[in-house]
Each structure stands twice: as structure tokens, then as C-alpha cells.
């Protein structure tokens, strides 16, 4: 039995003991300090939107302190909410978003189920393909799509330019790949034993999907739905390209093109419009924040 001769030949440090409680206290102080700074940075624009929306045009041009409302008014809100045009924008956005969400889920969920659970010819290729479609941005596709739809319009007589329902065809290209990816992640995390138990209990593939997978993966479904809705609602480029008449516009495009008339900017109304336009996603976020975040992170951490 030889005793191990590891002698303390290393540099001897002056034994200066730290203090855990002190370190932890300082770590907390720094954390909150920086968090407050970043919170100010991130929340200033929306708060400023709110402040401006409560100002009259007179107060805005008077150039008093921009960070405070001296004579709050709701005239901007009333003006917009009673404007048929604005309500039209809101309606268009809502219809488009709801339809797109439905279409997206109808495409994504079965596809995700097939890709995560069943082996078929080309399934791995398709899986990577779905991922790779994100490398082809919308800003590349908008021009050829515009031309394609114009051509189809000329050839078949179906008007595809300047119609809001065109967006129903195009938006899914933005939502379906990621929603499929989210759902694949959630489906993959369901243990295979559940499938087998269902098979033994006599369920067909379709019944397994509807009675077992969808209920169990419900959080993922909600997350995907929220994602699809948010993306649809926020779209700017595609509607800008494909819709031009005022009654066909969705919110983002509508606010920008109609409220900015030439050189006259009615900032009170613009900010109110912007805030109202941001409201639906914000409200959903406020109530369903956890699903929202789960949707985002599901892609990355499970992928």
C-alpha cells in the first residue's frame, strides 16, 4: 500500500474566503438593476404609443413634454372605432387570420402526425425539407408569386391580385412549416407505448390521432395556433404587394397607407391605430403567455 505522493506543488493562494451570502446579494442587485434598464428599453415604445394616443392634435403640435399627457382625450379612439374604413381593416385582418389559422392547423397536424409517427417513403427528406423552407424568405418569393398570380388571373379569369382571399393561400407558407415543426416536437414526446395501447384497444390510425394525440398534445396545439395567428396578423409585405384597394386592406397596411396622407401625419390617430392593431396579439399574449413561449422554444430545444 503506497500512499499517493501528490504534494502541494501548486501555487498557494492567499486563503481569502469569499462570502456566499454577500455574493448572492450583489448578484441580485446587479440582476435587478440591468433588468430595469432593459425593461425601460423594451417597454418605452409601446408606452409612448399609449401616451400619444391619448393626446389631441393640438397638444401634439404644441410640442409640450412628449412623455406626459396633459389633456387626455379619447377622441382618437372614438374616431377610429367609428370609422368604417378602420373597422373594415380590422375585420379583414380578423377574417384572414382566423381562416389562415384553421387552414394551417388542418395541414400541419396530420402532416406532423405522419412525420413523427409513421415511416413512409421520403419522410426524412420531407422533415429536413420543412426545416429548409425557412431558408427561403418571403422577400424572395413575393415577386415570383406576384407574377404567378397575375398570370393565373389573366389565364383563368379568377382575380387573384388585390383580393384579400389571396392572402389565405399565401400566408400558410409562412405558418405551416413552423407549426408542423412545433407539432412534430410535441407528438414525438408522446411515448410510443400510448400508440401501442391504443392499437391493442382497437383504434384506427385516425382514431389514435383524434382521441389520443390531439388531447395529449393540446398545449402544443394551442402554442401553434397562437403562433399562426400572430404571424398572420402581423403580416405586412404580402398584403402590401397583393392588396391595394382600400376595402381589401388588412390592418398593418391599412393604417400605414391611409393614415399617412401625403405630408400630413395625424400622429394621435396613427398611434391609436397602431396600438389597436397591436392589441389582439398583446391580449392573447397577456392571457396565454406560457403557450406563446412554449411554442417558440419548442422548435429550438426539441429540434
Amino acid at each position, binding site marked *: 500500500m503506497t500512499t*499517493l505522493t501528490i504534494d502541494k506543488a501548486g501555487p498557494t493562494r492567499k486563503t481569502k474566503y*469569499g462570502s*456566499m451570502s454577500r455574493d448572492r446579494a450583489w448578484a441580485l442587485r446587479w440582476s435587478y438593476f440591468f433588468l430595469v434598464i432593459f425593461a425601460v428599453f423594451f417597454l418605452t415604445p409601446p408606452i409612448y404609443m399609449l401616451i400619444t394616443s391619448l393626446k389631441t392634435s393640438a397638444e401634439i403640435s404644441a410640442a409640450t413634454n412628449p412623455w406626459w399627457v396633459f389633456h387626455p382625450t379619447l377622441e382618437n379612439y372614438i374616431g377610429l372605432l367609428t370609422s368604417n374604413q378602420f373597422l373594415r381593416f380590422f375585420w379583414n385582418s380578423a377574417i384572414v387570420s382566423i381562416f389562415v389559422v384553421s387552414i394551417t392547423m388542418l395541414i400541419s397536424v396530420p402532416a406532423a402526425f405522419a412525420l413523427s409517427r409513421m415511416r413512409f417513403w421520403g419522410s426524412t427528406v420531407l422533415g429536413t425539407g420543412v426545416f429548409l423552407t425557412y431558408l427561403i424568405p418571403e422577400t424572395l418569393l413575393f415577386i415570383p408569386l406576384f407574377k404567378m398570380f397575375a398570370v393565373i388571373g389573366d389565364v383563368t379569369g379568377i382575380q387573384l391580385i388585390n383580393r384579400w382571399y389571396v392572402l389565405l393561400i399565401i400566408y400558410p407558407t409562412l405558418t405551416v412549416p413552423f407549426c408542423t415543426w412545433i407539432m412534430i416536437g410535441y407528438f414525438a414526446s408522446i411515448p410510443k407505448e400510448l400508440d401501442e395501447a391504443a392499437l391493442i384497444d382497437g383504434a384506427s390510425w385516425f382514431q389514435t390521432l383524434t382521441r389520443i394525440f390531439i388531447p395529449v398534445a393540446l398545449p402544443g396545439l394551442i402554442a401553434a395556433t397562437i403562433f399562426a395567428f400572430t404571424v398572420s396578423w402581423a403580416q405586412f409585405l404580402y398584403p402590401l404587394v397583393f392588396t391595394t384597394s382600400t376595402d381589401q386592406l388588412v390592418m398593418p397596411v391599412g393604417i400605414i397607407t391611409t393614415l399617412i396622407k401625403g405630408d400630413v401625419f395625424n400622429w394621435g390617430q396613427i398611434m391609436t391605430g397602431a396600438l389597436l392593431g397591436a392589441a389582439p396579439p398583446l391580449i392573447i399574449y397577456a392571457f396565454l403567455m406560457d403557450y406563446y413561449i412554449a411554442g417558440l422554444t419548442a422548435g429550438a430545444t426539441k429540434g
Partner: protein
Amino acid sequence: MAEVNLRKVIKRYDEVEAVRGIDLDIADHEFVVLVGPSGCGKSTTLRMIAGLEDISGGDILIGGDVVNDVPPKDRDIAMVFQNYALYPHMTVAENMSFGLRLKRYPKAEIKSRIDEAARMLDIVELVDRKPKQLSGGQRQRVAMGRAIVRNPKVFLFDEPLSNLDAKLRVQMRIEIKKVHQKVRTTTVYVTHDQVEAMTLADRVVVMNHGRIEQIGTPTELYHHPATRFVASFIGSPAMNFIPCQLEDAAGKPQVRISDKIAFPLPAARAARYQKIPRTDKLLLGIRPEHITEASAHSEPGVESFDAVLDVTEPMGMETLIYFTLQGAQVCGRVNPNAGAQDGAPLRLAVDLNNMHLLNEVTGAVL
């Protein structure tokens, strides 16, 4: 190498006290095992020694210095985790040398320490591999190597063998004992497995519900448990507890199990149990190894009786037998060729020289 002292150490989570006042003195070079069922506070105590948990009350001293508020990196300790906690992106050598590299030890020194530890643990060929390429046992060795290389004052082990399969566990137990023989660092080892405690420890600390039940050498705990908990925890299969009462028959004390079975006490015990009221409800504690098949000749203190066996478990080198006495299931160990059969009667002998009497109410060993 240094001594570790715990003085009235308490750990509180909100309203619940997980550790309720532990006093323990661990001498330099000693190998102490904290053992007990899940939730008894042994891991929490270890983590408080490591500095990974705050101490709610009391003091912990390492090498004579109070370390309550000292961060782990300044305590000069090393820890082997249950899940190994190896850095997955570093090779074995980098894992083992991480602590030394942080303290800027000279390269030559680092290399010689790694070589020595790798040789001791038989992982020399693995030195350039990553953890994902190693088996469970190899990973555990690397974790130990990481601890050895630092040459700390204290080694802390947190259930290191729990993730290994049974055979590997036996092997690693021997490795750990060999390492301690070579390196002689003060060691605090936590486990729920009493076999590990008995085989590795210089002294064993049995814990239950946040308190220490008993501290002693393995032999002391085996032969002289202080409470029912310790008596039933140490030893496998566990000690039998048979309801009984003391009585006197013709001036000689005996322990009565049932109407038909009463054993006279051996002389040594008679004196000790003299003061116990004969009306107290007692338990006879007797280990299975002390219930065997009756032999032809008699010895002092060994009494025979008949029992009808419920179940037998042939283990190869012995047969475990189970039967019922006074409503209690009793286990005994007999020779494989003693003729034990399920449901059949067998004449058994009990070695009362190794008996214990416990108060049924308090659980104390009398």
C-alpha cells in the same frame, strides 16, 4: 486532509425542518458514511458541508475553520455526484484537470497528477475520450479522478453507486475502498444502501427524519443497535421482531413468545434484563442468521423449537425460510440440505446469545 465538525446543524425549508440539529465530529483521514432511507436528510447534510445549500442554523467547520458562509470553491473540497456531473464537452483529461486549470497550476504538475490518478483508477486509455463515449462505471471513475486530482481536505460522495447495476456496484465499492487506502483523505459518503455503509465505513452515521439515530463502527451497529430503526435498517435480511413478554418460571427469567414457546434467557442476559417490568410489551429482536436448523448437540444459549414453514427461498449457499410466530413473519437462514420445504414443519434453533429486547412502544433497545 482535515477534520470536519458539525455543531447543531439545522436545515429549514419554509416551515419544514429537513435536518434537525446534527452533531458530528469526523476525524482526519476517517471514512464516514451517512446512511438512511430517502428523505432522512443525509444528502442535505452533505450538500451543506459542500456549500451547495445554505445552513439554517448551527455551524460547520472544516479543518477547524467555520465555513458556514464560505463558497464551495474556497472550502477546498471535492465532490462525486450521483449523476457524475462530468462536463460533456470536455475530454476526460480536461474534466479531471478543470479545477487545477482554474487555479493556474503549472502544466507539468497538472499532467503528473492526472497520470497518477488515472493509473490509480485504471482509466489511462480513456484520458482523451469524451464522457458520452464512456460506460457508467468508467464515468464514475472519471468523476472520482476529478476529485482525487484536486487533493482536497475532504472528499464528499453523494450516492455515487446508485446509478450502476448490481455487479458494477460491487466492483466500484472495492475501488473506492482501495482509493481511500491509498489516498487517506477524510471522506463523507452518503448512501441509502446499508451494505455500502457496512463495507466502506470506518464509522457509520444512521439518520432518520433529519436526526442521527446512532453513530458507530459497522460492528457496533450490527451487534449493539440502540433503536429499533437502526436494528431493522442494518443487516440484510432485516432483523426479526417478535412480540413477547418476560416472565419468571421457577425463579429463572424466560422470554415467552406464545403459549407453546418460551425460551430461558442466557445467563448474561438474565442479569441485564432483571429490572424490566414483566408486564411491559416487548419485542424479541433476533437476526435471521441466528435462526438456523436445529443441530444434534446443544450449546448454551441456543434453544430449539418447531415451526411450520410458510415459504422457502433457496439461495444456493443457504436457504431462507419464512414462518409465522405470534402474528409476526419471521425469517431464518438454514443449510440448503436441511430439508426445508414450503408448508412443511422444521425443527429450528435460535441463538439467544445474540438476542435483543426492545420496548415495543419506545423502540429503544434495552
